[in-house]
């Protein structure tokens, strides 16, 4: 078999195939639920109810979506330039760490604390990705493996700090940092509703990334480098510099997930702050076809699946990992469906 480009794909193709991918994902989920001895329809119902069935559930989904918007944007920005940043997890923790350090140690006055914490977090995340990207541009070291390995190194570093110098003396022996003072917390958007300004910041960032990508030279250069680095270089685009700038933006965005989780939700740093938000960001970004505004939608969807599955697994005998399988399957089905909207399979 062989792939042949389709000059003008029909609407049936461009809309039908992604719909088919969704149907296939739902089928996989139904099979998994049946495998666990549960009624698939009932399971789906419980997931939806758990995600958006009440005010509490919906707010929980929005809260869960917040870090995923940041990491999803981080991945989308980087992948657009074919910079394979798989290290959003490490950058998230770098941001969270700096947030806690500044918030608890410096005693900054209220209105100053939050902006400085956020900027420092961005800087920390950017620096965390700078190493791997410089190794890539200067020495040609593959960034996939270095960013992946940095996730493990960062996790151990955080674990060391939480058991050592950063351990909360009032923490009853638990490895956690002291809590941020009141002034250094992100306030809630509406008093009484459990949703903090981190969510708004995530939306602003999505709009910002969209503006950069569509309205600036850098956005154009990032796309050019991603599509064909040789051609970009030939056209006079400084490929290395563009990759470094991309990395700084990407790392900074991932770090804001850490900032927002600590300052908006948790109030302190623990080693389980992120249940893999950095990795899930890859799914979020791919499902959004790397479009920054699409990232918001897909982060809400992915968060809904996770929150819904958590709630469902408390009621039914279906393990919560069904959410992870479902999303990985959705990713694979979707990339295939999108490919087939542009190519047809021919024999020979």
């Amino acid at each position: 078999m062989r792939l042949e480009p389709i000059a003008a794909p029909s609407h049936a193709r461009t809309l039908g195939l992604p719909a088919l991918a969704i149907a296939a994902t739902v089928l996989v989920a139904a099979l998994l639920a049946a495998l666990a001895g549960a009624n698939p329809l009932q399971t789906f119902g419980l997931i939806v109810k758990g995600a958006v069935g009440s005010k509490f559930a919906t707010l929980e989904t929005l809260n869960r979506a917040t870090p995923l918007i940041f990491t999803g944007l981080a991945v989308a920005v980087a992948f657009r330039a074919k910079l394979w940043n798989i290290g959003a997890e490490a950058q998230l923790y770098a941001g969270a760490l700096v947030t806690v350090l500044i918030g608890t140690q410096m005693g900054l006055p209220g209105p100053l604390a939050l902006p400085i914490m956020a900027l420092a977090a961005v800087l920390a995340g950017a620096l965390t990705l700078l190493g791997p990207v410089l190794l890539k541009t200067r020495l040609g070291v593959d960034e996939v493996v270095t960013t992946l390995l940095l996730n493990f190194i960062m996790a151990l570093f955080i674990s060391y700090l939480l058991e050592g110098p950063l351990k909360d003396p009032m923490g009853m022996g638990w490895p956690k940092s002291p809590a941020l003072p009141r002034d250094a917390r992100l306030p809630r958007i509406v008093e009484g509703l459990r949703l903090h300004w981190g969510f708004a910041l995530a939306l602003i960032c999505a709009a910002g990334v969209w503006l950069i990508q569509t309205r600036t030279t850098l956005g154009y250069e990032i796309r050019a480098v991603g599509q064909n680095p040789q051609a970009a270089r030939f056209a006079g685009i400084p490929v290395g510099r563009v990759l470094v700038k991309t990395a700084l933006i990407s790392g900074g965005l991932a770090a804001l997930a850490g900032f927002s989780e600590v300052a908006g939700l948790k109030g302190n740093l623990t080693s389980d702050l992120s249940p893999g938000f950095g990795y899930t960001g890859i799914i979020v970004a791919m499902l959004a076809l790397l479009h920054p505004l699409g990232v918001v939608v897909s982060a809400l969807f992915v968060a809904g699946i996770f929150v819904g599955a958590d709630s469902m697994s408390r009621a039914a005998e279906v393990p919560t990992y069904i959410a992870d399988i479902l999303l990985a399957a959705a990713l694979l089905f979707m990339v295939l469906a999108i490919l087939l909207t542009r190519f047809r399979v021919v024999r020979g």
Partner: protein
Amino acid sequence: MSELVDILISASFWAAVLRIAAPLIFATMGELICERAGVLNLGIEGIMVFGAFAGWVTVYAGGGLWAGVAVAMLAGMGFGAVHALLTVPFGLSQHVVGLGITMLATASAYYAYRLALPEVTNPPRIEPFQPLHIPGLSDLPWLGEALFSQTALSWAGFACVALTALVLYRTPLGLALRAAGENPQAVEAQGLSVAALRMGAVIVGSGLMAVGGAFLTMSAFSSFFFEMVNGRGWICIALVVFGAWKPGKALLGALLFAGFDALQVRLQQTGLGQIVPYQVFLMIPYLLSILALILMSRRAQVPAALMTPFNRGER
């Protein structure tokens, strides 16, 4: 210093080096086969997780040890087939598909584990592979314990390196496979199918990765727990680069790496472990992998067509 010497002359240290290296060797050979044919397989981490689970659960359910290895291998080949289908004929991004396979395989293993054992906090143990007694050799003083106290699965790992090297460099199949990763047009010109070669390599390679994972539950830890693979797959990708895509050099890399890993565990027990936090020791394997990548970056002989999809009829 004398503590270091004590560690290095102890037979148990060298036995541990071989034990730590064995799963890495299987998975590294698996990745190497994929990459020599031109496909980067980032599914490795997840396939190892699934292999660890599949091997363990087979034995837990009453199957034999070798049956467990076979089940793990078949499961790995299954995930490999999905990876191969998406990346070879469809030519999708090997990065995206590989990471997707890792997530899918990892989540599937965890889901199945939770289904099999809903509320278990203490993972049940199985009776793992026992050290293979080799008459004469295993009874040698020091050497017997250091080198000849390995399980049959360990030995299979070393045999796997020899077999991989033999097939890659001494058979027409190996030549075609390497050519598929260097110059696929030439392979097509010979009337061979690049797609078939690459898909075969990814499927077989993924099977080996799963056996590497199965080694962890069946020959090292004897139970399955979450996050047990812990980045070993990514380390194997670094080992392939470190070994310059050659089986023998990759084996040396795995042994060297396992040596440092065995050493850091033992150094934690010494005076050094009193001063330096244990997390620093645990970082060593990951730091070494990055260092290996940096050292080899100048001299890496990457297969020329690695990560380049091949669409017949296209120039």
